[in-house]
């Protein structure tokens, strides 16, 4: 067993570590380094400017707009996605009505899971293109012509600064709900049936069963979902870049941090400044992950 052990270990680790170090670790470390410089990305020279980049960020109205929009995404997207997915999981699992053996699942739950999950397997630009044309601001778009039937005038959607970000959030939620429904449903299926039966025998209705029994048992999964969605809301780029022209949408209405990083780093030749934004994004992600795990911490239920 000892023979050839170390050469083997090293030989197996090196390819993976090398690729990971060159393309992931080194850029991450460099980002912290460049955030302290005035590097343009074009000329090889740069000088250190200390925390100047970070100070400038505080006065950058576009960046502040991006942070505000990301903050809204961060609240609305996880709340709406987890909420809808839980409601759908509830309907799937107890919609079949109560019976002697406990609450029953709904018929056709396989079909619903199949359909709801579908956006998850498609590339984001595909989804973005479909929705940006459906939401065409003139009366000729799919949604606007339907609104016309019930007498609502054409809405500007992605062209309207008040609506654009909400449209983006809608598409994010629309695309993610199915995944979390399947996730929650899988978690519910792993709960022993006796627990639900016991609740019914004790006289709990289906809503009470869901709120008092199912939800606490799902808490770990909900917590994981929350962190994933928060990262998604911070990292959002493709939807905004493809759906809203600009880029950044009307009046920076859909400006987000990732878009600002790309613009400053590649279009305006401010690689150092863009790296500083990256560092801010990193700490935001870190703080939010820790915060989410803290506030949602509960007594772990074993079963």
């Amino acid at each position, binding site marked *: 067993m000892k023979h050839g*052990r170390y050469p*083997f270990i090293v030989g*197996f*680790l090196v390819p*993976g*570590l090398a*690729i*990971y170090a*060159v*393309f*992931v670790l080194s*850029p991450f470390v*460099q980002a912290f380094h460049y955030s302290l410089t005035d590097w343009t990305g074009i000329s090889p020279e740069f000088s250190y400017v200390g925390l100047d980049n970070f100070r400038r960020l505080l006065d950058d109205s576009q960046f502040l707009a991006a942070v505000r929009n990301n903050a809204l995404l961060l609240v609305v997207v996880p709340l709406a996605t987890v909420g*809808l997915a839980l409601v*759908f999981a509830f*309907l799937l699992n107890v*919609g079949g009505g109560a019976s*002697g*053996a406990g609450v*029953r699942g709904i*018929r056709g*739950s396989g079909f*619903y899971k*199949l*359909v*709801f999950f*579908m956006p998850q*397997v*498609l*590339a984001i*630009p*595909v989804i*973005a*293109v479909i929705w940006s044309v*459906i939401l065409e601001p*003139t009366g*000729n*778009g*799919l949604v606007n012509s*339907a609104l016309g039937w019930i007498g609502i005038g054409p809405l500007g959607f992605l062209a309207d600064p008040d609506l654009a970000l909400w449209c983006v959030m809608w598409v994010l939620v629309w695309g993610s*709900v199915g*995944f979390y429904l399947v*996730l929650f449903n*899988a*978690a519910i*299926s*792993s709960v022993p049936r006796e627990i639900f039966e016991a609740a019914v025998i004790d006289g709990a209705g289906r809503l009470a069963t869901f709120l008092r029994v199912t939800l606490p048992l799902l808490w770990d999964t909900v917590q*994981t979902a929350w962190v*994933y969605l928060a990262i998604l809301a911070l*990292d959002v*780029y*493709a939807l905004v*870049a*493809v759906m809203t022209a600009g880029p950044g949408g009307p009046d920076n209405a859909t400006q987000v941090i990732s878009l600002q990083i790309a613009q400053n780093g*590649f279009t305006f030749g401010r*690689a150092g400044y*863009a790296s500083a934004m*990256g560092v801010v994004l990193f700490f935001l*992600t870190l703080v939010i*992950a820790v915060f989410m795990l803290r506030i949602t911490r509960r007594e772990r239920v074993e079963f």
Partner: protein
Amino acid sequence: MTTTLPPREPGAAPPPAAPPAGGPRLRQTPGDSTATATAHAVLLLWSLLVIVPFLWALLASVKDSREIFGSPWELPEVWRWSNFAAAWDRGGVGDYLVHSLVVVSGGVVLTMLVGSMVAYVLARYEFRGNRAIYYLFAAGMMFPVFLAIVPLFFVVQGLGMLSTYHGLILVYVAYSLPFTVFFMHAFFRTLPTSVAEAAIVDGCSHTQVFFRVMLPMAKPGLLSIGIFNVLGQWNQFVLPAFLSPEKPVLAQGIATLLAQQRYEGSWGVLFAALAIAMVPVVVVYLIFYRQIQAGLTSGTLK
């Protein structure tokens, strides 16, 4: 690792929550049927919200621009299949498809190989620095790609790998490694040690044990993480958008086409390109959806 949603045979009984059709019908109160009807109504409404956009996009692929915007809810007067030929040649979809296929096949095979090698060694061998390397990989799952995108561009440029197949493949592998290592690490830990020990006694080298014994035993895990990586790399947009401007992959090509249509106005061609990008993925999804859902969710649950 717990697979909470085991792949089921197609057509097998739904989860235990639902009784088999035709089984003993339980007495339903009027309140129950109202609840059931409401549940179905809500779920059907959301199903429509998902399906209608896709069907509408498919229909738009055989319309012309005037019909797409003038009569969005109607069938086309003439079914313009020529949109597809135009998307393939003029829109460059044929090229994008080839780029995507090359990069994703190379990327997934290399990810699986390199990722399982690292995960295996970390999971089954004690050595100094084991934990540190594991956390180094695991940490990669948390970091936003955008923190690194600007320096990454210059790394790839410095290596002369912008807009090359091998450059994109290596980057895809690098960003797929954290989750792959994390997932396969958990999987290798659950495999019994006795078989590997027996193989060693029989004179297998460590490398032979890995390729002949452990990898075949890890097949279910490899399948789950393989599907995850195929979907993830096929749908990748951010990395190629910055690192491969001259060799666009499919997702990137679609975004470029949309930008062009804002000026050219041949929307039917855009939707034909969308259909070409969308239909194969949806067909694969419909065939393997149980495995896909199980793979993606088991990855997140543990």
